[in-house]
């Protein structure tokens, strides 16, 4: 959507698409036709982007890997370097650190200071948060501090990195948030169908983005569909601290 709206100049990513539905039309239009504007892309793989963020998170200038040797990704990316390991002369690919200006994290709960609990697969969330200069937390629920400190192993990054905590129930829709709501598959498919053309995309944005005042109105527009996605989840067996 950011690409389709012309807000993006450059993308560093391992994968851009509409999972389960197909290719990402806005991304295709931008890359193939320069519509609405030309973007540049730095190709990555899941591992290389995770390593770049890990390097950023621990303040390492780069991390060496064996992945992608022989692939065209390093050439297309342009920031990697091939080198020999000084330990055994074997070939390695050096992935330089990525330090994002901002990382946006959606989590189940956070306190007012920004101490955030995320569960379910972490993907690259933690590395991205630690690597970033600042973090914006979208919390499904803002909870008392005691709920966070009752389980400090679940905290994903230190509060001093968090520039803003926003209580936004349903922030991930149409993607899921473990224990809160499931995935809205049909919403993805509908988006896919309607954004085949640039006009269709503008129409969709007019309806769902600029056409709703805020996220509450967006959820209200979803109506019963949103209610049906909600899941209670099964509570974890507590850990005693």
């Amino acid at each position, binding site marked *: 959507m950011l690409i389709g709206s012309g807000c993006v100049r450059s993308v560093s990513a391992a994968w851009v698409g509409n999972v389960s539905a197909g290719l990402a039309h806005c991304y295709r239009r931008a890359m193939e036709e320069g519509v609405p504007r030309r973007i540049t892309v730095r190709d990555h793989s899941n591992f290389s982007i*995770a390593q770049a963020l890990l390097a950023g998170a621990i303040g390492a200038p780069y991390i060496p890997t*064996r992945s992608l040797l022989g692939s065209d*990704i390093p050439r297309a990316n342009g920031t990697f370097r091939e080198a020999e390991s000084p330990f055994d002369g074997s070939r390695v690919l050096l992935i330089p650190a990525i330090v994002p200006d901002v990382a946006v994290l959606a989590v189940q709960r956070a306190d007012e200071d920004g101490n955030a609990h995320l569960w379910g*697969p972490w993907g690259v969330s933690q590395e991205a948060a630690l690597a970033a200069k600042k973090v914006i937390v979208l919390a499904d629920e803002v909870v008392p501090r005691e709920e966070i400190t009752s389980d400090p192993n679940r905290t994903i990054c230190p509060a001093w990195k968090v520039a803003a905590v926003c209580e936004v129930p349903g922030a991930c829709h149409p993607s899921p948030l473990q224990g809160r709501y499931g995935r809205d598959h049909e919403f993805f498919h509908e988006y896919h169908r309607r954004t085949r053309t640039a006009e269709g995309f503008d129409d969709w944005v007019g309806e769902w983005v600029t056409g709703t005042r805020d996220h509450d109105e967006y959820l209200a527009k979803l109506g019963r569909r949103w209610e049906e996605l909600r899941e209670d989840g099964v509570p974890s067996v507590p850990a005693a601290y």
Partner: protein
Amino acid sequence: MEVSPGEIMVAQAAREIRDRERVFVGMRLPLIAFVVAKRTHAPRAVGLFELGIVRDEPAPELLYTMGDTPNVSGAVWCARTIDLMGLLQRGEVEAGFIGGAEIDAHGNLNTTAVGGDRSRPKVQLPGSGGGADIASLAQRLIVIMPHDKRRLRERVDFITSPGYLAGGDARRRAGLPRGGPSVLITTLGVFRFPDGEAVLVSYHPGQSVGSVRAATGWELRVADDVRETEPPSADVLRVIRGYDPEGFWTRRAE
């Protein structure tokens, strides 16, 4: 109900998973192949999902994406991508599934872009995801894709996921520590890579060497003992159709 190409592919893919193996599982057909393997000959196989999930039991319901909530419920480990990719790089993952838009006879795959140059392609594809890592680092790669001349090409436009590169020992010389495609399963047949180059070992029921050749963009090599692909057993079909009752993945038009 007639057996679909998707079902034949799933059944063949399931046969590629051995018991107790750690397998990087993709979505769609690979996921169903993993379910079939688990419920038939490989009950102790373990599935890894690149966003950071490890399961020793498949999710009980059909998934659209690996991040769907049922894929997390019942997982034995919710990890980070780097943890699982790290174990992959260590060589602890025996097999991985990937697909692609294009493949060449050396098993090199393109999921990045077709035509034009990289900055202005004719068709922009989604990119590697974890595919290039799995292709680089798994002990064995299982490739699944639709079969037609524009996809099985003499040369791919971009090597996203390295196979045997230019063939011979090119893969080792590039610095990759192991692996390479062990099988390519298409909508028409099954290829193996005995010396780093694709050889047709079977054609699916209803196909022939000739029909496969006609749909293949490289000069087809055929195994001496080429034969028809073994169709799915009734048991296997029951598992497939129980898991994907509406044929969302296994009976869709590709």
